């Protein structure tokens, strides 16, 4: 999902770079307001885990792989704004140390995976929580489904960027169809991995899960 330099023209990439920088600044501010001191190591750990998990490309169809994006995973664990920050940190590390994801495309990637993937994915998660059964099973299911949907949504972010400033003359419709079809499939892997990890954390330390509504009260009380 990491856009290299060149797919999207310079003006569009720069515009998304400015938007991503502004969004990241706001996300850091929001995160500072709700993150407790005890959660700082957890948030750092989630960032490290998302980096590690993104290294695992799993086969999807012949000749194509997918890897975890981790936006919903991070957002459910430490909140949507921290999730946005985590994905941004991961993308910066990948771009600078591993030449993965173009530097000029950093803003494009942060908007797709950080904003749409984590903040957008978390909004879907919260909506699903309302309609699914209460309790841990509903929570894990909501996280998994939201993660699965967040992948094609992030892919649609790329299609929108391509429509605005795609550098090739391949039609937007063709890119849309191909991106949607492939990323719906990748989303299944994202959903399964997210559900497994969230399930494991909820099972052992539910008080650490930001997105668990029934625990929010208890945690807030403990912090006050």
């Amino acid at each position, binding site marked *: 999902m990491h856009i290299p330099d060149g797919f999207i023209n310079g003006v569009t990439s720069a515009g998304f770079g400015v938007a991503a920088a502004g969004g990241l600044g706001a996300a850091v501010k*929001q995160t500072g307001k709700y*993150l407790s001191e005890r959660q*700082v190591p957890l*948030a750092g750990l989630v960032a490290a885990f998302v980096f590690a998990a993104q290294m*695992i490309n799993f086969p999807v169809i012949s000749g194509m*792989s997918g890897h975890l994006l981790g936006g919903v995973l991070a957002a459910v664990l430490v909140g949507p704004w921290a999730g946005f920050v985590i994905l941004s940190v991961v993308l910066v*590390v990948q771009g600078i*140390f591993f030449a993965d994801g173009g530097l000029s495309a950093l803003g494009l990637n942060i908007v797709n995976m950080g904003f749409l993937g984590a903040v957008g994915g978390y909004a879907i998660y919260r909506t699903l929580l309302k309609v699914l059964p209460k309790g841990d099973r509903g929570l894990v299911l909501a996280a998994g489904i939201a993660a699965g949907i967040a992948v094609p949504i992030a892919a649609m972010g790329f299609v929108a960027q391509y429509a605005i400033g795609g550098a*090739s003359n391949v039609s937007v419709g063709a890119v849309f169809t*191909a991106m949607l079809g492939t990323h719906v499939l990748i989303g299944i892997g994202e959903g399964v991995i997210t559900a497994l990890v969230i399930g494991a954390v909820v099972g052992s330390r539910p008080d650490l899960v930001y997105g668990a509504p029934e625990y929010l009260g208890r945690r807030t009380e403990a912090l006050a």
Partner: protein
Amino acid sequence: MTNRRLFVVGLVLALGVAVVLAQFASSSPDGLEYVAEQEGFLETAGDHDLAEVPLANYGETLTSNGWANTAVAGLAGTLATLAIGSGVFWLARKTNGDDPESAST
């Protein structure tokens, strides 16, 4: 599980994923690269500005040992992300977390 224990377990898991599990990762192109290839816009991709950094493409050209390259890249990247991520969150709290409700721990 205590917080310290959870942190250690989590870090060991993350390193295990990045160092060991990553050895078995598929080398097929990911969704976007696959689509770019199929639809014919892959050639619009330019060279990465930092293509010459030692760990470019997860250490692909570091040594002749692919297993070691991935292990070093996974270890270094996971720890770097932990350090930078923790630093950013620590700063975020320090500069914005001064309202009494969240800063009283």
